[in-house]
């Protein structure tokens, strides 16, 4: 059997990206949350904020380490797997990545040292400064990576000579038209993801009757965040969709399963896109509603897939279903936020067990929505790696397929084992919960090995479980 190097390289990239995105998605929000907790502690002097900050710092350290090691892989993969990409658009995209390293990576990695290990070496105020700089670094990192990614989706500010892109206007390169909303959409998604993990953790402890004071703060802060940010994300997402309609119509048609642009567009609720027959099988659709959402006009039209040559069409199945998954999760998230806000207003948030049980299972929602969203946007960009400039099939490296197959297998096994164990340890930490009060914290200070803290936590949790009848 002939190995398909292109397919193997794509699978490898998808695998390493999908694993990687989980960690920054979480740590962008978590670092900001820790900075807020530290600020609240310094302002109010309440011990519970300190123990919460220390608790989440341990979780952060573990997640961040996994983000670092999986991210370094990516910075080299542009060259190892996509060397023609790195030449064709290196003049334009590489400086954006360079700025990410210079303005974000060093900031995060260096001040992480103080944020984790500085507790007995520097005053608390400096810990807050370090945590804020780490949070700032993670957001700056997102800024540059989304800038580069947006340029790949809809390049501007460049010219192409002999298949090589050259920069003409850096402002237009950095702030390409789809960038502002894409960045806002991702950042908001990261904060939402973290909020759901925080609420789920608080809810679990409340349900178990442990760490009640801290758990209430987690639930309250998280629900407040979700109630504001989840509906906001709907607005941002809608506008981002309008960007897609304007700049990437083929992707939008694939997301919507929209084939025939000559008719008023329905909203396809369900169906199985059939690329060969150019229609959806088993379609359930609401007439005209699609046009209303996209064109903001009853009976509105927008291009269908048939209007694009088959060689320029993205695959339909994955964007179509991933988009529905993302939107579906988003709707549940908004419901979680609004119901929570309503309960909070009626002062029943901590008593409504059904709500806490529901939230305790919502922790993966942000991660799933992000994976689904990235599937939509990246698969929807195909067959291009840089729209209009370079096709994915032309971007590969001169590396034999056997090499890629071998490393793909290694990535698969090693990532599954290493990150599987890491996620298991994060869960142990979450189950253990915060250690109460500063006195306890002084006797058992934040260990310099963040994961080491998981050990007693994990044992406690296991003992507690075994102790129960």
């Amino acid at each position, binding site marked *: 059997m002939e190995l398909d190097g292109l397919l193997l390289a794509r699978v490898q990239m998808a695998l390493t990206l999908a694993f990687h995105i989980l960690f920054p998605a979480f740590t962008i929000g978590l670092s900001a949350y820790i900075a807020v907790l530290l600020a609240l502690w310094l302002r109010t002097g309440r011990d519970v904020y300190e123990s919460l900050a220390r608790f989440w710092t341990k979780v952060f350290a573990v997640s961040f380490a996994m983000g670092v090691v999986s991210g*370094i892989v990516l910075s080299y993969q542009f060259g190892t797997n996509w060397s023609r990409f790195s030449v064709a658009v290196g003049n334009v995209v590489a400086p954006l990545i360079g700025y990410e390293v210079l303005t974000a990576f060093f900031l995060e990695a260096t001040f992480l040292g103080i944020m984790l290990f500085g507790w007995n070496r520097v005053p608390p105020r400096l810990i807050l400064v370090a945590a804020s700089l780490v949070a700032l670094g993670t957001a700056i990192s997102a800024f540059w990576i989304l800038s580069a990614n947006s340029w790949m989706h809809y390049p501007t500010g460049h010219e192409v000579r002999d298949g090589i892109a050259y920069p003409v206007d850096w402002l237009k390169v950095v702030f390409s038209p789809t960038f502002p909303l894409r960045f806002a959409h991702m950042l908001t998604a990261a904060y939402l993801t973290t909020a759901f993990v925080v609420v789920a953790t608080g809810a679990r402890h409340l349900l178990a009757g442990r760490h009640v004071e801290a758990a209430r703060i987690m639930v309250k802060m998280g629900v407040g965040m979700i109630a504001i940010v989840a509906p906001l994300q709907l607005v941002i997402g809608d506008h981002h969709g309008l960007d897609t309609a304007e700049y990437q119509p083929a992707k939008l048609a694939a997301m919507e399963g929209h084939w025939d642009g000559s008719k008023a567009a329905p909203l396809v609720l369900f169906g199985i896109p059939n690329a060969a027959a150019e229609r959806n099988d088993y379609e359930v659709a609401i007439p005209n509603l699609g046009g209303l959402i996209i064109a903001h006009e009853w009976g509105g039209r927008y291009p269908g897939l048939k209007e694009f040559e088959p060689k320029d069409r993205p695959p339909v199945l994955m964007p179509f279903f991933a988009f529905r998954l993302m939107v579906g999760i988003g709707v549940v998230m908004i419901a979680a936020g609004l119901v929570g806000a309503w309960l909070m207003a009626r002062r029943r948030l901590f008593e409504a067990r059904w709500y806490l049980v529901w939230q305790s299972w919502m922790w993966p929602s942000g991660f799933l929505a992000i994976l689904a969203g990235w599937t939509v946007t990246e698969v929807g960009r195909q067959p291009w790696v840089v729209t209009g400039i370079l096709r994915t099939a032309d971007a590969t490296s001169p590396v034999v397929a056997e090499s890629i197959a071998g490393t793909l297998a290694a990535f698969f096994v090693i990532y599954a084992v290493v990150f599987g164990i890491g996620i298991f340890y994060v869960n142990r930490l979450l189950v253990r919960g915060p250690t109460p009060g500063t006195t306890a914290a002084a006797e058992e200070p934040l260990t310099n090995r963040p994961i080491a803290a998981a050990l007693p936590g994990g044992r406690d949790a296991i003992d507690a479980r075994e102790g129960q009848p």
Partner: protein
Amino acid sequence: MEPYLPVIWAGVIVVAVAMYVILDGFDLGIALLFPTTSDEAERDQMMNSVAPFWDGNETWLVLGGGGLWVAFPLAYSIIMPAFYLPVIAMLLGLVFRGVAFEFRWVAKPSHLPWDIAFFAGSLVAAFCQGVILGGLVEGVAVANGAFAGGPFDWASPFALMCGCAVTTGYALLGATFLVMKTEGRIADHARQIAKRLIIAVLVFMAAVSLWTALSSERIAERWFSLPNLVWLAPVPLVTALVGFGVWRSLERGGEMAPFAGTIALFLLGLLGLAISSYPFIVPPSVTLYDAAAVPASQMFSLIGAMITLPMVLAYTVFVYWTFRGKMRPGQGYH
């Protein structure tokens, strides 16, 4: 300014590589010394001595790779596929090294697998870095601006020897760092190992130098033609002197000097390789100028680098200063 941009950028990348080799060199090196002791407390102390720094140290590797892509996209696009397998192996080694830093403490008392992962991950990363360096000095097959060789072209005896050389060098950096940063049994132990490693490192440096000079006419001419011979003779002479100084300082109980001297040895080694390779960034056919990004791109990135790198260096120094002083047995950064 434009004609100098590729040279300035080459300088930035050399600085990034030097920073990486020195900083991550000592924490990879400490992991390489794990098998020389089976004492759990000693291993704890070794790991603690680099815990707050390793993440920042590793970022220089990202700057080295990223900087290469930024400033010399063509070189990046040739080197990465040419060293596909060692690059990926190095990255996976670093994954194990990075997480072992954390997982080892969770797994206690049955932490042996993570001790092994810490050591083996670092060994693979260090060895692959040496192989890539050696393979690059030796030359890469290029046709039509792209890599044109096979998947195992890098596996030459010279490159494999460079892998061993760099691994030994990192171990020396790690040992001399421990001499500087720790006290008691662990420091004595590190000093004994360093005395043996310095001899091995000097032998490797001599071997690499002679091998490159004898196997490549281009490199031989660079070093042995007049007047270069006169100008360049101090490089090997100073290297020999520094090497002797490190050994003597280890004998006489020096604490800072062996580490500083080892850093100097690494810098001299890099300088030697740079002299051998200039003006090629991918010997023997692609020069700095061939591979350079367009001036607009190099300039845009250089402005950022000139503003941010001094800040990066400043806060790196701040963090090292925050965690200054000796680590005593049993004492972590608690």
